[in-house]
């Protein structure tokens, strides 16, 4: 098939060998174009996860801080945000923002003088994924903050810390350690949810794989490759987070020694 190319590198020859000897058509190995598409798909998935992870953590920290506020309106707003985003489908959220809100916003002119939307589909995907994961993170951080003993906060107040200072220097470092297991779960979930960006044509892993299997007609093979890739990505994340959990564990706190 595609194996009569003149210059074959090592990966290509492995792909050709597999195709010739087993009939398994791994285009991501022996076809350079498909390989690049697949790799950039993985890159986009990682990019989406990392950026939304960053923003969702910020939303979580700020939201959890605002939830302890003295103003009832602020608390009420934050709770409404959490309840709303936890109980509607993430795909509907993405569609709502990408189709609904994006069309209500003003358009800008791009470099060629064409009408372009204010945010691209990648940016909207990051926006809605961050809000979705952030809503869960607020709850998680709140449970961690509640686990910090009152006497610790009082001691900080006695030492002259302000409310914000106590939060940043005393409460948060302790709370993060307490809620790391739940946070891990949510971040793994976020990585899996990035596949929804497929629906608004963000070229992430699923989208790239779909393009490859439509072109190369190797649906079952690509399917298995795709599943294994996701399992590997999640596996790496879980491993890294567990290592972090162990290194952050407070001796004599919780189950100690990071479980």
């Amino acid at each position: 098939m595609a194996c009569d190319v003149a210059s074959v590198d090592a990966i290509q020859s492995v792909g050709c060998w597999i195709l010739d000897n087993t009939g398994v058509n791994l285009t991501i190995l022996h076809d350079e174009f498909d390989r690049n598409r697949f790799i950039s798909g993985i890159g986009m998935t990682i990019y989406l996860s990392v950026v939304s992870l960053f923003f969702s953590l910020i939303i979580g920290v700020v939201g959890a801080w605002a939830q302890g506020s003295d103003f009832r309106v602020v608390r009420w707003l934050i709770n409404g945000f959490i309840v709303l985003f936890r109980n509607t489908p993430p795909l509907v959220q993405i569609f709502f923002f990408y189709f609904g809100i994006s069309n209500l916003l003003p358009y800008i002119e791009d470099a060629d003088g064409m009408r372009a939307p204010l945010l691209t589909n990648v940016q909207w995907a990051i926006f809605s994924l961050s809000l979705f994961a952030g809503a869960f993170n607020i709850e998680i951080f709140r449970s961690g903050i509640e686990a910090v003993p009152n006497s610790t906060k009082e001691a900080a107040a006695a030492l002259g810390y302000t409310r914000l200072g106590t939060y940043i220097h005393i409460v948060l470092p302790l709370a993060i350690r307490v809620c790391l297991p739940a946070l891990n779960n949510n971040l793994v979930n976020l990585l899996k949810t990035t596949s929804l960006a497929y629906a608004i044509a963000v070229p992430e892993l699923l989208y790239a794989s779909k393009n490859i299997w439509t072109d190369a007609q190797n649906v079952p093979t690509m399917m298995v490759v795709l599943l294994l890739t996701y399992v590997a990505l999640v596996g790496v994340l879980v491993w890294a987070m567990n290592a972090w959990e162990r290194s952050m564990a407070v001796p004599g706190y919780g189950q100690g020694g990071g479980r």
Partner: protein
Amino acid sequence: MIAFAILMVAQVANGQAPAGDAPAAPVSEATTTAPATPLTVVLKWAPLLLKGFIFNIVISVASMALGTITGLLLGLGQISQRKWVAKLSWFFTQFFRNSPWLVLLFFAMFMIPFQITIGSVTIPLPDWFKAIIGFSLPVMANVSELLRGAIRSLPSGQWEAAESLAFTRTQTIWKIILPQCVKRMLPPWMNLYSLITMATVLASIVGVGEMLTLTAQVHAAEGGRPELFAPLYGFAGLCFFAYCWPISKLTQRLERRFNVKT
């Protein structure tokens, strides 16, 4: 119960075929008269959209039932005393738990044939049926893990006490361990149900005619005006919110009452 659910799905799916064609008529009407306000558009199409929403709920109930039964078997497999059964069950649980639901749905959609032939009987497998199987795979893995967690959270004294009372292993599991697991598993199980209900909209990506598919069709039927996107998708979100929020409230209350840490 599954048979009933499948019947329900079939009925709704059949009812939808004409409904999908229906928007053709009002289009000419809409173009001749003044454009309708978003609110009247949503109200006009609400019955159709709600019918689609019921289809979503039926899919979620059916896949939850299927996933729970297979998941319990897989979970029991994980605590099996035969090493290879336990290893294999563990592998399947982790594999399906760690892959995105949308990818599993694609997997089910493309890998299951559109009909199966047993002898001379040909059974067609419609899209919604494949979607149910696709959603039941992650449910299965999660229920399996819930069961393992619940069993592990029981004090080992329960096993020892049962053994000293001369219960066999099967009896211990069925009469002593599993009844206690129900209470521990119920809140997270309900959480999972609400998650799977929200995930059923993914079926629209692979071409099953559920609520979001209908929403897109309604939007096209109303002339595809961009300002209609927000109210229509907002309505879809509202329906799910109205269904899932009470479930999550109930889950929280049960968690408090059972006082089980999840």
